[in-house]
């Protein structure tokens, strides 16, 4: 009996040793990285754009393996916090972790301090500028101000009533910056291309309170979009992560209303209601991820704040351009040349829409005549601009 016990113990120990060695050998050739997404991975918006870029990393870098968790927000995952999830991803071998929401800022900062050996990418934050994080955390964002300018331009070129609505998420510097960019694009098209009176352009923002609908907590984006259309707004620009604005516009079109919408975030964002879609400004996270993950994999990681411009030579190039704009079926081809010229002016720098004279919403001066805003002024825009309707803070 004693011999059998010893034999069994030996076999057990050998198995344990074999599996341990096997798993450690396997781990060396792999590079697992984690992706925490605030919304569902198939939201046709913000999170799906990240998910697909993560999948692309697995193709670009041999050995890279994405471990992802979606719906990372307190409403969908009560009691689960970012540091908890990071602990878990690290225990699974993740060497780099991406958090894709402004809402994760505090948690990412805390987790990056708990795990100094892991590299972190926080999307849309600015801890690197403010110096609140350690060197193992970088920030990544695309210059979506250009995409929103194109959205605003297209909206104003297409609007019959001159009433453009913006379905806003929550209010912060990022969303103020993007809505202001959309407004400036719309105002340019309305006054410079269509030669209309600026007083006839109505640009209204309603904020729902978060990046997507949380029943009982946020305003319902479907109801807000419907209310816009019922109030005479004929183009809705979406600033939220999901597609309600476009879906509602599609339904209203079927009901005979001549309304259009511009979704956000995801290159195939028009697919929910193509006939009602004017176009979509979208993020392509592949270039940014490639740079940061590549650096991490090759041991060349350094803390960076990346606010990446479009590849102006080809803004819809999936390998090189972090920002893109695709027109939809609702786009009138007679406006094509105007849009192309507009994009070319932005590309060569001859058109800088954040240039004075510009006032803030409360009437105070933002930029004096012929003065262009610095990156810092645009990034930290403290108020909406004069001419925009909606809350600034």
């Amino acid at each position: 009996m004693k011999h059998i016990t010893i034999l069994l113990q030996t076999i057990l120990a050998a198995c344990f040793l074999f599996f341990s060695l096997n798993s450690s050998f396997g781990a060396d050739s792999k590079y697992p990285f984690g992706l925490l997404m605030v919304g569902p991975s198939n939201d046709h918006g913000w999170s799906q754009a990240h998910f697909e870029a993560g999948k692309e990393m697995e193709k670009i870098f041999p050995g890279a393996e994405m471990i992802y968790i979606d719906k990372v927000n307190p409403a969908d995952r009560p009691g689960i916090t970012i540091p908890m999830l990071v602990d878990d991803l690290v225990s699974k071998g993740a060497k780099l972790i991406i958090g894709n929401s402004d809402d994760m800022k505090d948690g990412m900062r805390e987790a990056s301090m708990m795990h100094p050996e892991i590299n972190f990418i926080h999307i849309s934050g600015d801890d690197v500028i403010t110096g609140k994080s350690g060197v193992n955390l970088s920030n990544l964002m695309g210059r979506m101000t250009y995409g929103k300018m194109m959205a605003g331009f297209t909206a104003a070129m297409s609007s019959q009533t001159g009433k453009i609505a913006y379905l806003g998420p929550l209010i912060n510097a990022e969303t103020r910056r993007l809505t202001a960019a959309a407004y400036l694009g719309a105002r340019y098209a309305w006054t410079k291309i269509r030669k209309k009176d600026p007083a006839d352009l109505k640009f209204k923002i309603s904020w729902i309170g978060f990046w997507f609908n949380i029943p009982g907590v946020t305003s319902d984006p479907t109801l807000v979009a419907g209310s816009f259309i019922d109030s005479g707004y004929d183009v809705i620009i979406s600033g939220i992560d999901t597609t309600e604005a476009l879906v509602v516009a599609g339904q209203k079109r079927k009901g005979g209303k001549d309304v259009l919408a511009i979704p956000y975030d995801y290159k195939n964002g028009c697919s929910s209601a193509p006939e009602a879609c004017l176009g979509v400004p979208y993020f392509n996270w592949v270039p940014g991820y490639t740079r940061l993950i590549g650096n991490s994999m090759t041991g060349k990681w350094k803390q960076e704040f990346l606010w990446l411009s479009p590849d102006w030579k080809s803004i819809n190039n999936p390998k090189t351009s972090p920002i893109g704009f695709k027109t939809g079926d609702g786009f009138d081809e007679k406006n094509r040349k105007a849009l192309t010229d507009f994009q070319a002016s932005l590309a060569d720098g001859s058109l800088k829409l954040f240039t004075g004279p510009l006032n803030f919403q409360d009437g105070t001066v933002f930029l004096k005549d012929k003065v262009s805003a610095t990156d810092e002024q645009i990034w930290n825009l403290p108020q909406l601009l004069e001419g925009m309707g909606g809350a600034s803070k």
Partner: protein
Amino acid sequence: MTSSLGIPRFIIITVPALGVVSLLLLSLGISPLTIAITLARGSVLSWLKFNHVLSVWIPLLLCSCGLLFTFRAGLWNIGIEGQVVCGAIGATLVLRLGNTYLPAAMLLSLSFLSAFLAGGVWGALAGFLKNRGGVNEIFGGLGLNFVAQGAILWFILGPWKREGMASMSGTDLFARELWMWVPRGWRTAPAALILTVTVFLFTAFILSATRFGLKIKAVGLNPKASRLFGINPDLTGFTAMIIGGGLAGLAGAVQVSCVYHRLIPSISSGYGYLALLIVMLANYKVTLTPIICLLFACLTAGSIQLPITLQIDSSLSGVIQGTLVLSGLLAHGLQQRRLLRKGS
């Protein structure tokens, strides 16, 4: 605690419940064994993961202790969610005074006291509505839950909103010194753990070894008969609601000071409603409650493994929890009926 066959009643209830859950999973094409292993790996197989379980277990047990008082008094305290929320608001109110001359430890202590008072007042309101307004505590509690939810949204978007922001993300983080101390390698504050165990022992002692506990039991069993012994059922029930609300308020304080370090709209994490299921599954027994809390905490903390490891939506753990409770209650009901038949 044992059946006529000598098998513990807990086993008689949980084994069929687990059987039903297994059948449900099999019908969905999912191996129950795989799910069990995944949940176990995600909850108890490392110290860090067990810490995550504890961070769920603590507020769950605090809520459950509160419910033991009210259930024992024959009251369905559905308003416990609102009491957790009010506790969180009460704690935040104190913690936002972080720049005063009071030391951090004192502010933290005061925040827990404030949370207990806020939760207790919310519980008292439900009790008052029942005693004076004739509003059943279920409907009163539900209404008060909505009011509490409205209040927390108002605070977050109104007076306590972040500088230059209007977001449902929550308030600013509290100053670092106002986070409850967590040792290196831990993820749970030992002070919160000690507080919770103390509250549990206090609950067990009050309910089983004091005159007040006996009064509550008498009121719960038969309010009319209790009057014959000089007990005021309204006052006793009212007191139970205050204590229950206060303990739920402490759960809210743990959520803001130990877990999120700020006030967020879904600060209760649904623990109040989950605690209702736990106490029912425990058959209102004090001793079983922490064990079932631990099981449910494992399910909650471990559920995150489902999407990571198996690409299954983690809401499945909610289905498992609900099915466990329903099956457990059904098994318990059938067993009671069988015993009654035997008796007659």
